[in-house]
């Protein structure tokens, strides 16, 4: 719409009188801001209408003004309860933030608690493991002590059994105490043999071989039977479970006492 048609459609008059739809109204407002000449034209219309209104003014009774100002005074005073509701909404906001704070902190505490619970479980497990290790260690220590005391005794004699041509690399150490009548064997260096065979120890008493016991392969130190009046100690390879009499062909080591 150009400037002249706007003037001639009478739309500015309708705008002034408030007859236009919201969209048209906004459009006219935009045009009036952009077009100075139209703006001047519209200002003229406004002035004329205002002048007509003033020429046709009717003085209202004073009571209207009094009532109006009283009413405004009252609404002003009613502002106070509105402010109160503001403070109550402030209080509400404070309460809300406090509860949010508690929510968050209890959430945080809950996760902390869960974490602690997990840590406790882990610690409990570790403690149990440690306890088990201590028991094992104590057992080991006791055993080691026992062997140490036995070996370290001044009456103990250390004898080394060396393997013969059947088992040249085998070694075994025996600790014999004639006072306390004990024989301790460290079989660790004996050559590994098949699972269906076992080493067995014998004492030679006046030409007769007497069983001192089967040497189990998994032990570091074993207590063997002490035999009185033995002249030598011998080790043979026997079928699994041991034999009543030694298989002399399988004698691998011996030592004189």
């Amino acid at each position: 719409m150009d400037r002249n048609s706007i003037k001639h459609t009478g739309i500015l008059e309708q705008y002034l009188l408030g007859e236009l739809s919201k969209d048209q109204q906004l459009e006219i407002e935009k045009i009036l801001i952009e077009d100075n000449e139209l703006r001047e034209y519209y200002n003229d219309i406004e002035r004329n209408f205002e002048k007509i209104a003033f020429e046709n003014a009717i003085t209202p009774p004073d009571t209207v003004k009094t009532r109006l100002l009283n009413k405004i005074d009252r609404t002003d005073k009613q502002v106070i309860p509105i402010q109160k509701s503001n403070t109550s909404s402030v209080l509400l906001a404070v309460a809300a933030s406090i509860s949010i704070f508690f929510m968050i902190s209890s959430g945080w505490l809950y996760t902390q608690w869960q974490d602690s619970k997990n840590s406790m479980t882990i610690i409990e497990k570790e403690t149990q493991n440690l306890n088990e290790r201590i028991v094992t260690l104590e057992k080991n220590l006791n055993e080691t002590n026992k062997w140490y005391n036995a070996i370290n005794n001044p009456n103990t004699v250390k004898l080394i059994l060396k393997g013969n041509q059947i088992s040249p690399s085998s070694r075994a150490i025996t600790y014999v105490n004639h006072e306390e009548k004990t024989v301790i064997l460290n079989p660790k260096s004996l050559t590994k043999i098949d699972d269906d065979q076992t080493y067995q120890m014998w004492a030679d008493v006046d030409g007769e071989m007497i069983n001192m016991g089967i040497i189990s392969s998994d032990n570091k130190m074993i207590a063997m039977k002490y035999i009185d009046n033995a002249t030598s100690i011998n080790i043979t390879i026997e079928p699994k479970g041991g034999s009543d009499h030694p298989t002399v062909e399988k004698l691998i080591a011996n030592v004189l006492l």
Partner: protein
Amino acid sequence: MQDDLGLIKRLQKQDSTALSELYDKYSGALYGIILRICKNETIAQDLLQETFLKIWQKSTTYDPKKGKFFTWSYRIAKNMALNAMRNPNTLIQNQDLSVYNNKTALDAETDVLQLNGSLKKLDPHHQKAIELVYFNGLTHREAHEEMDVPLGTFKSYIRQALKKLRETYQKEFIILWIIIEITMYG
């Protein structure tokens, strides 16, 4: 004519003395409009009060860039009056409605409602056109039917009426200026 911008700013800051001053300035012109629409003094006085209450409450929505303060107030007053005419029983509360049926207060025929000033110098059809849309609150569409002329013709009535008014006002201004000149230097 620059509106009282300072006064309006004070109004927008809810200064009740500003409302009082604006009331003194504009209440007569607005009451003239309201009374001519509803033609009942009691109702018109209530509506005038409601109009200024709305001016007070909505003052921040007035934008001086978009037009004169009076135009803005005029629209509020007119809508208030037209709504009251459409729903006479609901819009004005806190009042004894029987008052409205008592027409002794004022009748449409009284001299008060006669139009004055420069309008009287216009041709009757121009005067009528302005009266219908401006003082009776009719839309252009309603008014052209009322006058029984095509809409385009009606619009040109309004335009011509305003043009003549402008000329009258300019003449009055020149006469006023001459009088001032004569009294000052004569």
